[in-house]
């Protein structure tokens, strides 16, 4: 008999749910369940425990569960938490993005059988190739400097699934552009990330025989951050769940839906929650923020949600901070005043407990400059970060973490690193192969253990030893290779991360010695003692003259920022923004006005 891959560690943790009826209901749910989880309500914990329970009690290998989440970072966090419960990614437990799911579990096994008009074996376009083809196809259609935006092209492709519909043609230029671009991709035998989901959806929508196959492999489908996943996944989910008999466990918070520009839509989650055949569960206890912040964020949202703080006695700091000198003044104030005060106000608090949140990378540049001038180490997560976080770069970081001392305490676990490495191979390895690869990786990592070495050397050795061979063999990883190349470049002499050592590479998220600089979007799912939001001026958050829909999303973005904080929120503004033709004095963000007004009315 094969050994159970599931430990019973979840039972001990599940006992902690006793005081929380919502979490308990989700944990005990038998059928389809949608968990509407407020900020800090322990949704990830609930999801992870439920998954562990399902794997231990409800399904047995080779059948299993697929857990789809928004980003590689979210998947990594889930993996980390599951590891504590003695669970890890195995052939019958998928944890990853919707792209990964569509690629590995829909397109690869069934794409050929369905005669999808793409080339097998699949090859994914790197970002560079993609950008080139998008630019060329656009220029060819509309001439250089045309007014159409790439971001809208992506949204259109993702959100209009039926290419024969009026909706698709209604934005004629985007439709033409998309078709020209896709033709160019196919010409080169490539697919891009959006194709994975588009074709994944087509496979599920058009071929009935796929449903029982997916249901056989994954009788349970868990989805995290449902509000951030687009309409394609929503259709895939509905078809699998209501026509394919797959059991659904979805978690999300429509109030935190901030990816509308990519085609995401928080109302899809509410549509599910309203169905008769789905058990809705609300998590209203906030374990993160103190009471003042919980109330204030509900006021900022302008909706009654009934959220409560777990510990009502903790004192909140909520400050509206005017800085007349613009963004750089805000940055300087944060560095000179807020951060030192925050560090001093609680014993044991470190830079890692503090985050500066901003709208986009331009603001990030300003913040970075001030923080560096102030002599603080920092971690920056936004579009101008030296490399994007993809599965491969995350894995390299975790390998660094293991070699930099993690091996002493088994965190991350070597077994998990090996499994994730094996998962990079585009198809199944047989046992002997897997064993050989695993042994080789183990030997390499064992040799590379060294707490003090430049990250550059570590990454070079890892690539030389094993990763470059993997990349040569697996074309599907071309886009991830590009990010690893950028990491390598940044670490090289003269690169922006030239001074990084292995420990910092391994701890690139959540290092106690580094101040966190990140966009509001990247902050989702994170939490900090002290949150400093900058640039809260009309013309920035929100933009001028936003459509009502956009305005609602901006409000949610503001709400996401507020709800990251445990103890302190500092909201910095100047009353004007820098425009193309100089400063534009439009006043501070209306969200601040409303919030201050409501707080005053409530007697804060």
């Amino acid at each position, binding site marked *: *008999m*094969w050994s159970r891959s599931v430990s019973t560690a979840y039972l001990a943790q599940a006992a902690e749910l006793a005081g929380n009826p919502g979490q308990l209901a989700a944990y005990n749910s038998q059928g389809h369940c949608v968990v509407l989880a407020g900020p800090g309500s322990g949704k990830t914990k609930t999801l992870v425990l439920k998954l562990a329970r399902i794997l231990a009690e409800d399904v*047995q*290998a*080779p*059948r*299993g569960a697929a857990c789809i989440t928004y980003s590689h970072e979210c998947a990594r966090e889930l993996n980390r938490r599951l590891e504590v419960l003695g669970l890890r990614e195995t*052939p*019958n437990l998928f944890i990853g993005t919707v792209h990964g799911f569509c690629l590995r579990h829909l397109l*690869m*096994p*069934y794409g*050929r*059988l*369905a005669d999808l008009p793409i080339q*097998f*074996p699949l090859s994914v376009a790197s970002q560079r190739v993609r950008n080139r083809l998008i630019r060329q196809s656009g220029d060819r259609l509309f001439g250089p400097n045309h007014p159409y935006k790439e971001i809208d092209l992506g949204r259109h492709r993702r959100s209009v699934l039926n290419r024969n519909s009026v909706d698709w043609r209604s934005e004629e230029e985007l439709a033409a552009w998309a078709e020209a671009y896709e033709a160019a991709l196919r010409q080169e035998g490539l697919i891009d990330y959006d194709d994975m989901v588009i074709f994944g959806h087509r496979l599920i929508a058009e*071929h009935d*025989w*796929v449903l*029982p*196959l997916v*249901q*056989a*492999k994954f*009788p349970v489908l868990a989805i995290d951050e449902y509000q951030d996943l687009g309409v394609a996944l929503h259709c895939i989910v509905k078809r699998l769940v209501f026509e394919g008999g797959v059991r659904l466990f979805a978690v999300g918070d429509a109030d935190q839906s901030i990816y509308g520009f990519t085609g995401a839509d928080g109302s899809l989650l509410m549509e599910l929650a309203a169905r008769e055949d789905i058990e809705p569960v609300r998590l209203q206890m906030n374990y993160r923020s103190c009471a003042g912040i919980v109330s204030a964020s509900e006021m900022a949202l302008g909706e009654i949600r009934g959220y409560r703080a777990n510990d009502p006695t903790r004192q909140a700091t909520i400050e509206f901070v005017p800085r007349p000198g613009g963004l750089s003044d805000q940055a300087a104030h944060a560095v000179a005043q807020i951060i030192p005060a925050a560090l001093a106000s609680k014993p044991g608090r470190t830079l890692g407990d503090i985050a500066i949140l901003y709208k986009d990378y331009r603001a990030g540049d300003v913040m970075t400059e001030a923080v560096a001038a102030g002599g603080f180490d920092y971690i920056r997560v936004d579009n101008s970060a030296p490399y994007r976080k993809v599965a491969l770069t995350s894995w390299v970081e975790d390998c660094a973490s293991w070699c930099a001392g993690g091996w002493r305490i088994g965190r991350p676990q070597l077994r998990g690193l090996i499994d994730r490495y094996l998962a990079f*191979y*585009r*198809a*199944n*390895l*047989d*046992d*002997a*192969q*897997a064993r050989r690869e695993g042994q080789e990786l183990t030997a390499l990592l064992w040799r590379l253990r060294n707490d003090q070495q430049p990250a550059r050397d570590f990454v070079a050795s890892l690539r030389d030893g094993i990763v470059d061979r993997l990349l040569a063999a697996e074309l599907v990883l071309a886009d991830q290779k590009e990010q690893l190349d950028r990491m390598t470049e940044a670490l090289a002499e003269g690169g922006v991360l030239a001074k990084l050592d292995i420990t910092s590479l391994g701890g690139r998220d959540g290092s106690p010695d580094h101040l966190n600089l990140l966009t509001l979007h990247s902050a989702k799912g994170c939490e900090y003692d002290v949150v400093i939001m900058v640039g809260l001026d009309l013309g920035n958050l929100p933009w001028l003259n936003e459509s009502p829909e956009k305005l609602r999303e901006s409000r949610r973005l503001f709400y996401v920022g507020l709800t990251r904080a445990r103890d302190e929120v500092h909201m910095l503004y100047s009353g004007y923004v820098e425009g193309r033709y100089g400063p534009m004095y439009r006043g501070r963000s209306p969200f601040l006005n409303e919030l201050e007004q409501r707080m005053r009315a409530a007697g804060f």
Partner: protein
Amino acid sequence: MRISRVRLINFANFSNIDIETDESIVIVGENKVGKSNFIRGLQLILDPGLSERDRHLGLEHFWDGLSANKVGETVEISVDLMNFTDDPRLMAHLNDCVIDPGPPMVARLTYRFQPKAGLGRAPESLKDYEYVIFGGNDPEMRVGGLLRRMLPIDVQVALRDAEKDLASWRNSPLRPLIEDLAASLDDEAREEIQDQIDEAHRELADHDEVVATSERISERLMAIAGKQHAVPLSLGLAPTRVDALLRSLRLLIDNGVRGVGDASLGTANLIFLALKSLELDRLVFDGERDHTFFVVEEPEAHLHPHVQRLIYRYFLGSEEVGEVKLPMTTVLTTHSPHISSVAPIRSIVLLRHNAADGKTVAVSTAKAPFTQRDEDDLQRYIDVTRGEIFFSRGVILVEGDAERFLVPAFAEALDISLDMLGITVCSVGGTNFTPYVKLLGPGGLDIPHVILTDRDPIDGRVPLVRRRLINLLDVVGDELDHGNMDTDEVIELAESYGYFVNEDTLEPELFASGLADAMQEVIGRELRLAKNAQITLQQWVDDPDHVNKEKLLKWIERIGKGRFAQSLASSVSEDVCPDYIRSALEHIRDVVA
């Protein structure tokens, strides 16, 4: 779930075979033709017990026909599976292996022994080889050990040492049953057994004779070593713990008088198979397996024919135990006509040596163009003697027993040795040759065959043989429009297919061809004919052209056509052989040779 297709390329006896199969598989073939290698091929894909070394083939496993050019070739074996969609666990196992979404959905597993990928040069030896086992059409989709553990092939080899397996505790199929038994005993039952054993032990040990013997030993011990060194001794039963006792349980036969070791080979085999089938039930019940490909090689070993048939029926029928269908695919190999005669007609996979190419070819009945009625017909009529046709190189299909006895006699007279050529004479018991032609034709077993049939003329009407032959010509896919052909044209056409017709019916034909005297003698011996009748018969003998066929046949039928033919057989000679029989015999002789 069942196997629907098997392909073997460059493996052992097989250059390239590709056969479709039905619910269960009965592999029929002469010794050395490759029945075990066929199974071995399946094991390379499905057997969880094979080691990596076992799967790394040697040159001796390549098809011999490759002679010196083996290095560089690829061995490939694949098995297609169907009917798994009603079990989600099987679907999950086979998820990445689907090659046709269907319906019916088909999954494929492939073993390939090939020059290493990325070698960058021609392989020099088998050191440059690797094996892969993959699902579907994508060699990168490797199949792991879990699938083999959960869907294993379980092979009972031909000359198994059942007695030894039963005797050793570790390998015994009895062991899990005893362990279940031990686990099922509650404390009370254990205590009761323990008490009974203790009591029996005490009784035995306290018996005067036993005590006396132990004292004798003790005394001698003391005499040798003295009181200081001698240990106290007694005689008793060992062991006495319940678990140890249970482990020492053995199967006994003949009311407990003898152990299995004393049983005949056949009985030991039978017991072994019974235990094995119980074990399969248990593995499925405990969820340790999701499906078993259960292979018994030559289940007939050491068994009486009727027991062979019973065993066979059991293993092909045993997929349904009560209402529950056991997840099992049965594969049997055999060279016993007893077994093949009771095999479901669509289950036959026939392996045959092709001497010209030095390879084994395979055919199967799974996709033969039988109607349900054909199938029922064959199933009903294929008995042991007809079962022989599966092992034949050529078949002569005849209408009845008369031909069955006489045709071999004529063959001998013509110096055509049917046994040596491997030709069987098979009576279809009537004139319905169609199912047999489908069975033996290219859509089925592809065995050369001829037909001998009577013209059966009817006064003033078209002879019956016309319709009979047209039916056959339709089956063999003749594109001509037979409706417009007259009887003689049809007969002429049929002859080119090896279907031979006489002028009338067999017996009058023989009478006319020079056997009149011999036939008169047999009739005279067997029937007490009236004087008048004797005179009539003599007149016919004198002038065979004026024989009254109806009357002659009536007399022969009174004797029994078979008995009559048997008696007549000793009188046949080359000179008296009717033309159609001679033509048929020469035809089949030439085709087989």
